């Protein structure tokens, strides 16, 4: 036992809520289920903050280095004497930070949902699912074991499935839920095989041991995994790349991103929680968790870098063309996670070189606040307008001042305007990229300009532009419970940049000195402001400038508008190739060839039986003839042939 053992309560409380609400909620707690869920989560969040305080300020450091503490660990499933899944809790800067982010954002979403989901028939179920998700996500970030992470990984996947498909009567929601699950499942296949590879060579599933074995140049395990190769690539690269594939799937990296925009079919608070702040950054968390090993393998890290950078740019371009506000936010999420990924990719092992690592997680931290704020704000807007399409919106600033202000703060934050949170983290990322890879840097800066543009396009389209035709009775902002989270998150988006993540969450546990270089900041900030101004001129009032630009870029615009046809490619591959070339033939072969063979054997027997009935002709003399022939042939056989 350890002083941190009580941390187990943090995930277990939501689990208890889930069980309680899932089993009995509908019958007994329907009305108070929201309060119940929110309350227990508030307890969890409080404990998380307490843990964070005690870890970062009191007991975490030994000799200036943050230590990894494992307060609880139980063997859960033994595969072989050395390889077992242990269920445990790991406390280190990374997990503590994630703990805070997850519980905090989740709490906000819980509170927001009290108002947003009010009157839903399956209110209790909704909170049960939210609790399940929170539990799984917390389990994920606290994992001590790569297989433990995989398990919770799957669990967050399924809670995401359940929540996206919450409106299960809507076929589009069901389709989106299925898509999200299947695509991430496909990515998890890579993760699983990656685990198999790594664990086989490292002979352990435990993170600590695995990392220490695979980073120790003297260890036989490292020798083994680097010398073994497949198709000319070492097993270490294979393993890490495949693990990254899992992360990429969950974090919606190109080309496994296609599920994320569709996932917006879920209730908006869910999007805020799962598809903006927490679950989608699991991939980043995973790479960060295995970062010491990734650093050892340049090839894998390069893949991470380029996938991240390309995704960032790719998503930003698409985001500029979408009209569904949640989809815009979804692409922006993808883009921001791309930032985090390549930041990890450009990072070095430790010290100054480890800036990228810190920057990535810093961005994860700030992004969680402003992105969930954006989603919640969008939720409030949708709640009012009953539409997701920005064409149905406009001029809403008068109807919902608080939402407007907080949304603006969030947009400024994501655009990277000082002193909002996003500025600081993005600045670190750009610095890291600049020092390591100029190409990435250029892409990143360009993307940050695009980000500012499409975010403000969104902002202006919602809150300015033409007047929306509102129908329905209430034109307010919704209940208090919806406003409070907006305000709190708004404050966070404003202030999160000042949280000294650099002191705490670094690749080697040693505090990192960071400084904002004004000169360096000029370019990105200027680009961001340029983007904002461009958006201002296009979308502040109703005009056709944007359409003209769009038509002048016709081909490219159409492609971007159609998300570069990635969905269609997938559909083609699944529907046409997999279904028609594998599924249908398999079913056909089974029915006609394999089963047909069995049936043929049966009918063949019947046919033979019919054919030979003539022997039994009913004529006594023929019977005697066969009798006689039987004697003759048997004796001939045994006298002349078999001897």
């Amino acid at each position, binding site marked *: 036992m350890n002083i941190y053992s009580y941390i187990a309560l943090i995930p277990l409380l939501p689990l208890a809520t889930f069980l309680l609400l899932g089993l009995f909620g509908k019958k007994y707690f329907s009305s108070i289920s929201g309060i119940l869920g929110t309350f227990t989560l508030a307890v969890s969040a409080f404990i998380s903050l307490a843990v964070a305080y005690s870890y970062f300020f009191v007991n975490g450091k030994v000799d200036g280095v943050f230590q990894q503490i494992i307060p609880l660990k139980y063997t859960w499933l033994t595969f072989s004497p050395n390889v077992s899944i242990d269920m445990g809790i790991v406390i280190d800067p990374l997990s503590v930070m994630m703990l805070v982010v997850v519980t905090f954002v989740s709490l906000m979403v819980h509170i927001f949902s009290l108002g947003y989901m009010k009157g839903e028939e399956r209110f209790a179920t909704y909170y049960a699912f939210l609790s399940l998700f929170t539990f799984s996500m917390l389990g994920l970030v606290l994992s001590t074991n790569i297989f433990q992470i995989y398990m919770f990984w799957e669990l967050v996947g399924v809670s995401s499935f359940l929540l996206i498909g919450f409106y299960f009567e809507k076929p589009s929601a069901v389709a989106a839920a299925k898509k999200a699950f299947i695509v991430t499942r496909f990515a998890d296949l890579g993760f699983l095989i990656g685990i198999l590879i790594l664990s086989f060579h490292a002979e352990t599933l435990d993170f600590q041991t695995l990392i220490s074995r695979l980073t120790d140049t003297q260890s036989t395990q490292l020798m083994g995994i680097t010398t073994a190769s497949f198709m000319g690539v070492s097993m270490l690269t294979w393993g890490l790349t495949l693990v990254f594939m899992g992360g990429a799937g969950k974090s919606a990296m190109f080309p496994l991103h296609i599920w994320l925009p569709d996932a917006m079919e879920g209730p908006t608070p869910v999007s805020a929680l799962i598809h903006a702040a927490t679950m989608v950054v699991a991939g980043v968390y995973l790479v960060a968790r295995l970062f010491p090993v990734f650093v050892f393998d340049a090839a894998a890290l390069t893949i991470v870098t380029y996938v991240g950078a390309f995704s960032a740019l790719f998503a930003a371009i698409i985001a500029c063309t979408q009209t569904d506000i949640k989809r815009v936010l979804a692409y922006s999420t993808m883009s921001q996670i791309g930032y985090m990924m390549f930041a990890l990719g450009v990072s070095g092992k430790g010290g100054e070189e480890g800036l990228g690592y810190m920057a990535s997680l810093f961005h994860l931290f700030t992004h969680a606040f402003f992105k969930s704020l954006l989603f919640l704000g969008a939720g409030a807007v949708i709640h009012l307008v009953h539409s997701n399409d920005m064409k149905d919106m406009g001029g809403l600033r008068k109807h919902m001042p608080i939402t407007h202000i907080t949304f603006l703060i969030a947009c400024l934050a994501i655009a990277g305007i000082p002193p909002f949170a996003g500025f600081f983290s993005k600045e670190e990322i750009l610095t890291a990229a600049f020092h390591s890879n100029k190409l990435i840097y250029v892409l990143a800066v360009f993307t940050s300009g695009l980000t500012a543009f499409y975010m403000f396009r969104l902002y202006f389209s919602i809150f300015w532009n033409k007047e929306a035709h509102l129908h329905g009775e209430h034109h307010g902002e919704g209940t208090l419970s919806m406003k409070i989270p907006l305000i709190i998150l708004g404050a966070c988006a404003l202030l999160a940049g000042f949280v000294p993540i650099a002191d705490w969450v670094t690749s080697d546990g040693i505090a990192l000195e960071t400084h904002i270089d004004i000169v360096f900041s000029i370019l990105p900030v200027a680009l961001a402001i340029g983007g904002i101004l461009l958006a201002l001129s296009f979308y502040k009032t109703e005009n056709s400038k944007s359409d003209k630009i769009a038509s002048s870029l016709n081909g490219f615009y159409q492609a971007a508008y159609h998300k570069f046809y990635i969905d269609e490619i997938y559909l083609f591959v699944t529907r046409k190739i997999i279904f028609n070339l594998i599924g249908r033939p398999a079913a056909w072969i089974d029915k006609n060839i394999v089963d047909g063979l069995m049936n043929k054997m*049966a009918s063949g027997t*019947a046919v033979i039986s019919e054919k030979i009935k003539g022997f039994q002709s009913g004529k006594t003399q*023929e*019977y005697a003839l066969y*009798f006689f022939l039987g*004697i003759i042939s*048997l*004796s001939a056989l045994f006298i002349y042939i078999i001897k």
Partner: protein
Amino acid sequence: MLNDFFLLMKQELVLLLIIVLLLIIKVGKDWSNETMLNLINGLLLLNVISGFVMPVEGNLFGDMFKTNALISLEKSILNIGVLIISMQSYSWLKTHKHLSEFFILMLSTLLGMFYMISSGNLLMFYIGLELSSIPLAAMANFDLEKRKSSEAAFKFIISSAFSSGMLLFGISLIYGSTGSISFAEITNHISNEPLHIFAFVMLLAGFAFKISAVPFHLWTADVYEGAPVAVTSYLSVISKGAVLFVFVSVLYTVFKPIAEIWYNMLFILAVITILIGNLFAIRQNNFKRFLAFSSIAQVGFILVGITGSSQMGSASVVYFVLIYIFSNLGAFGVISLVSALTGKENISDYKSFYKTNPLLSWVLTIALFSLAGVPPTAGFFGKFFLLISGASQGNYILISIAALNMVISFYYYLRIVKAIFMDPNEQPIEKLSIPLISKLALFICLAGIVVLGLWSSVYECIYNLSSGF
């Protein structure tokens, strides 16, 4: 000497007494059919019991007649079968004019079989064989007015005359080349010269004709179909069983020197017998004809067991015949009831049989399962031991063929079960009132089917008695 005579031939003498008694009653008294049937069943029961009293071992008439515990048991097995058949034919014979003749003929054939089983000499064997087959032809024609019945009888008598002609020619050659008709002598002289092989094949054909092994089986189905049900069941279990007992002992003792040759012959015969029996059984609609072919397939399995040529082989064959009597008579019992009361003999008539006659359906089903070799019925054990005995020679090709053919046999047995339980029928066989004595017979069969397998002492006993091989 005289003591020996009475003791050793005890079973034959009891049988003879019954036959004479029946003759006297036939001539002197005019009792009603019911009384007669009850009397006969009582006598047959005594006959069964007498078989178990004071078993002795010994030879008579210069080794022409021999008996021992196994032979005595074999005779008792046949006695039990005859008793059951007699009980089952109650409904049929109740109104029949020639009741006592039927039993006189039947018991004569049984007497012939006893002689055959006890024979220690080809002459004795031949006499027993003919005694057991000529009256059978008359029995097959017992429904005098039926066309099919007389056709069946004609086919039977003419085919068996032909086959005994062949058999005798073979015997004459054996006699010519060995100089003896005594089994013990023949063993000393037999070898694998062509003449001996030829003679043996003719002898084998005679046996194969009786047990209906392919290709000497062609009379079987026609006769089974045409003959009255009681005769068919008698033919299929008793007559076949008796010949099998002799066949085993003749092969294992007399033709031991050419074991390798007859082993291969049996291999071939077994394979084609199982195959042809199965293939023909698949497409039959007449129940008796179906059972004819299924019994041909069963004989194939028995031949597989015989190839074991050891104590185990003999034991498994005797054991199987015992089980086969109960199983087959269980099926025939139901068929004979249905046939006697409604005249229906087709499998398609049995559709939805379960709806109206659940008890008979279960008996029939269990009997069929036993024939198919489904545990926990005795048939499973019987087949298992037969095949294991066949495998003991290391011929796994034979075993594989036999085992896979069991699948085909499952098909046709299950087809009937399907008809009984699953197929819809507008006019199912109406609810039958079963005479007490038939019911008793069915229960005996059922008990036999259940007990004989699970209760290992039966097999143990037979195995120990077979130690002579």
